[in-house]
């Protein structure tokens, strides 16, 4: 049994990664609770938490505000934290706007960017934008010195590469060199129409315009002009973010579930991280089914019938109780067998990577008490 926390000691940033629906947010929050109880000043940065979990973390609203979970809440859950737990829900647009304000040379330029339609699209809806800003926020919060450890619940990206390459993809757009060659005439001529350009550039531009519409290209050119000179600031910043995440202060926790498809995705994720020279500190397998046979007793239909009769329980109902019980026993055992096989496959594929298993709990986890219960499993204390 692996103690997850032993793998994370001394880290300043913990990133919970994995495909959607595997319990990244819950895992991130549970890690946060444990560290806070142990005495650390912790920030859990989340993207899209389940509503009740968000409520219990005091995250009713967006807005990039770190909210402290009051000691009284811990006490109500029977916990006495030596440190502090803060939680924050990432506001995508606001994070972008803050970044623009910080990087722009003056207020007029910042406004020109904020008003541009391409920027508005970029900062709200563009694929990869959320991933980029999540990393940006982690860096900012970690560098602020307010927290000993920042735990990131990464966006529910279906593809590991989307997450890792998001900053590059966005920086590609911001980097003027390439687009400048295509949009060159638009950039220099400003608002003059397409027809005035030299033949060779016009040829490419006109063709592109047939494809995307001329307005789009003009908006894009306007965006490029507004961003002029700011690219280096962005790139520099993104470089620091990357260095932090790839460095020894950061740990990646790969979160998964014991389902074949999800395990496949986790392995894919692991490979993608390895290609970026990022080591996975531990794998957490959530909601694994537990074998009811671990409690002992009858495990065949015949045995169940006998045990019922021994306990003087009437074998009534349709189908009779014994049949329903042994069908259920068979089904639950089968679920556990399937999960066990998948966990073994994962262990086999990732030799040497610490692996922690959290069983399926009877209820949804949405409060500190529930998170603390998960901590027992993550720390390999529960059985």
């Amino acid at each position, binding site marked *: 049994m692996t103690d997850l926390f032993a793998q994370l000691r001394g880290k300043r940033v913990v990133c919970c990664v994995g495909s*959607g*629906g*595997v319990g990244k947010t819950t895992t991130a929050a549970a890690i946060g609770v444990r560290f806070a109880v142990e005495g650390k000043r912790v920030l859990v940065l989340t993207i*899209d938490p*389940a*509503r009740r979990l968000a409520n219990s973390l005091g995250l009713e609203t967006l807005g990039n505000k770190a909210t402290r979970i009051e000691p009284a809440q811990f006490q109500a859950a029977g916990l006495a934290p030596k440190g502090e737990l803060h939680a924050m829900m990432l506001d995508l647009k606001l994070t972008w706007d803050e970044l623009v304000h910080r990087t722009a040379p003056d207020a007029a330029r910042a406004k020109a960017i904020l008003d541009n*339609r*391409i920027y508005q*699209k970029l900062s709200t*809806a563009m*694929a990869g934008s959320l991933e980029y800003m999540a990393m940006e926020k982690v860096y900012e919060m970690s560098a602020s010195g307010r927290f000993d450890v920042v735990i990131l619940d990464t966006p*529910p990206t*279906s*593809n590991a590469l989307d997450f890792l390459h998001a900053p590059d*993809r*966005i920086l590609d*757009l911001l980097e003027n060199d*390439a687009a400048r060659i*295509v*949009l060159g005439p638009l950039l220099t001529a400003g608002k003059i129409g397409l027809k005035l350009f030299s033949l060779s550039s016009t040829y*490419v531009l006109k*063709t*592109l315009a047939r*494809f*995307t*519409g*001329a*307005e*789009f290209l003009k*908006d894009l050119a306007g965006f490029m002009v507004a961003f002029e000179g700011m690219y280096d600031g962005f790139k520099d910043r993104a470089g620091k973010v990357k260095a932090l995440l790839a460095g020894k202060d950061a740990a990646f926790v790969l979160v998964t*579930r014991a389902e074949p498809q*999800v395990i496949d995705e986790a392995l*894919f994720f692991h490979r993608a991280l390895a290609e970026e020279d990022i080591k996975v500190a531990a794998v957490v397998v959530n909601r694994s*089914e*537990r074998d*009811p046979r*671990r*409690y*002992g*007793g*009858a495990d065949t239909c015949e045995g*169940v019938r006998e*045990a*019922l009769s*021994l*306990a003087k329980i009437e074998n009534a*109902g349709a189908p009779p*109780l014994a049949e*329903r*019980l*042994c069908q*259920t*026993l068979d089904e*639950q055992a*089968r*679920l556990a067998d*399937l999960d066990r096989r998948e966990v073994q496959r994962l262990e086999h594929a990732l030799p040497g990577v610490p692996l922690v298993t959290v069983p399926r709990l*009877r209820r*949804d986890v*949405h409060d500190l008490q529930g998170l603390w219960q998960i901590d027992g499993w993550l720390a390999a204390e529960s059985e």
Partner: protein
Amino acid sequence: MLQRGAHSSRGHFTVKDGAGTLWFDMGPAAQYLPAPMGLLDRRLLVVTGKGGTGKSTLSAALALAASRRGKRVLVCEVTARERVSELFGRPPSGTDMRELAPNVWSVHVRPREAMREYALMTLKYKTIYNAVFENRVVRYFLNAAPSLAEIVMLGKVWWHAAREEREGQPGKLRWDLVILDAPATGHGLTLLTVPEVFLQLVADGPLARDMRDMQQLLTDPQRCATSVISLPEEMPANEAVELSRALTAHGLPLGPLFLNSVFERRFTPGERVAVARGGPGLAAAGEAAEAHEARADLSAQYDKLLREQVRAELVRIPHFFDGASGIAALERFAKAIEAVL
């Protein structure tokens, strides 16, 4: 939503709207109404929902069911990894259309290839395409341009659904039904609202014209429906509610809402107590029964939530325990949803 098969000889039909079933007596005129529309009678079906809820399985099962009803079906997958071909026990189709089962085809829609196909269609001349789009610098720029990937991917799906003609039969559409196995919630919504967002940015050009047609298809309840699939768990269910609202707000007509992996209640409270007190011989059986009932409780809880919060017909799919695969597993899935097809 009109219920297929709910037509009676007396001219009744049922309308379900989340609040319950209403009966309308249409009188003798009802016999002239066209037969109520089944889900599979549309041109384009979109399947979305949180990751891991069974989107690809539903897409594959819908395709199989439609093919068994004599339709030619194409499943378009747009996520990073192909799944549908695997569910049919076939190798990945890749970006070329492949037949997975009689009259069921699939294709993996990837941005780069879709861009090429789409650009060729728009530009007509391959030389122009090569000169412009295969240019390294332009490619670099196109990769970075906001949403262009989503635009061309959706464009390709739309073309298959509404434009592609049967070989040698001009005017006749090649596919009777196209199923789009869309990305999970957020990305799915981004993809489906691409025409709307694009038309706000771009008003002219051939792409804008196509986007307008695309938007018309996506919002036409006679030709298109978007179905959300969920699990009886908090996050998928809440996402299903929010996603359904968002789809409706964007004018995208909802198909039935699918609740996957449902556990039915199996034991009475009295039985549970008796078994729990029944001694060590019943320990494992009692534990199994409690685990089952805990999941049945969650199923009932989220079933209720979805019925209350989403104005679409709810279709339950039981949890299947054996690891059946291939067409048999899809047939079983299709049977579970037969009522709305």
